[in-house]
């Protein structure tokens, strides 16, 4: 079965991203497909490559990046929500004339249409939020 996951909260502040990650891992282990993971609202903050969590804690962004690499996950950060919150990849930083970028290369930025399309293409869309 194909799942699209929608993550609406940022890392550490809420458990939403952790729950989604554990769900994704379990689904993949059972042979299901994750069609897309879409990061929206404060969920876009999961894609920062600059977070430095304490060494004895989990690294949520790196966990997603590793899972994404292993299973070639399509991890999409909503561009409108990202721009509002100062989350930029290198291309977007260049386009907007900003001097820094912070999105981890495991993620890609795209439009909200990717969420709707994810709902159409997947068998189930599951929301993780506050």
């Amino acid at each position: 079965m194909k799942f699209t996951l929608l993550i609406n909260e940022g890392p550490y502040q809420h458990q939403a991203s952790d729950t989604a990650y554990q769900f994704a891992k379990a689904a993949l282990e059972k042979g299901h497909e994750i069609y897309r993971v879409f990061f929206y609202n404060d969920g876009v903050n999961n894609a920062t490559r600059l977070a430095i969590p304490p060494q004895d804690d989990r690294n949520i962004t790196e966990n997603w990046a590793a899972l994404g690499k292993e299973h070639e996950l399509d991890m999409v950060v909503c561009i409108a929500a990202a721009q509002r919150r100062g989350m930029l990849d290198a291309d977007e930083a260049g386009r907007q004339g900003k001097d820094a970028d912070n999105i981890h290369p495991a993620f890609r930025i795209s439009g909200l249409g990717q969420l709707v399309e994810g709902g159409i293409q997947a068998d189930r869309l599951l929301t993780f939020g506050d």
Partner: protein
Amino acid sequence: MSESIKKFMFVNTKAPYGTVYALESLEVVLISAAFDQDVSLVFCDDGVFQISNNQNTEASGMKNFSNAYKALGDYDINKLYVEKESLEERGLTLDNIMDLTYEDEDWAEKPSIKLVTRAELADLMDEQDVVISS
């Protein structure tokens, strides 16, 4: 051959302005119109405050996005379900809710808002393919 149409329901349960959920949910709804799906919206719990009349953000400095709900009809999004019990619990009636309309095939203006009971809402949710709540 186009793909089959899915039933998308956006369930709004939170008041506007205190958090960004109402605004960013509306942005998804407007995008979804481009995908020719069967889209409906629900306003229940504090979500009913999202479409209250006379929102005035002049002094708070918040972005007033309430007019965007009035544009939904132009995007063929005209199934806006408001839960009766949620209004009553908050001392509201339909008089407190924006007059949201759409034009049918014959250009006649029709109300988009449909008042539904909690039980009717449960049935409607059950029929959906995709439910996105916030």
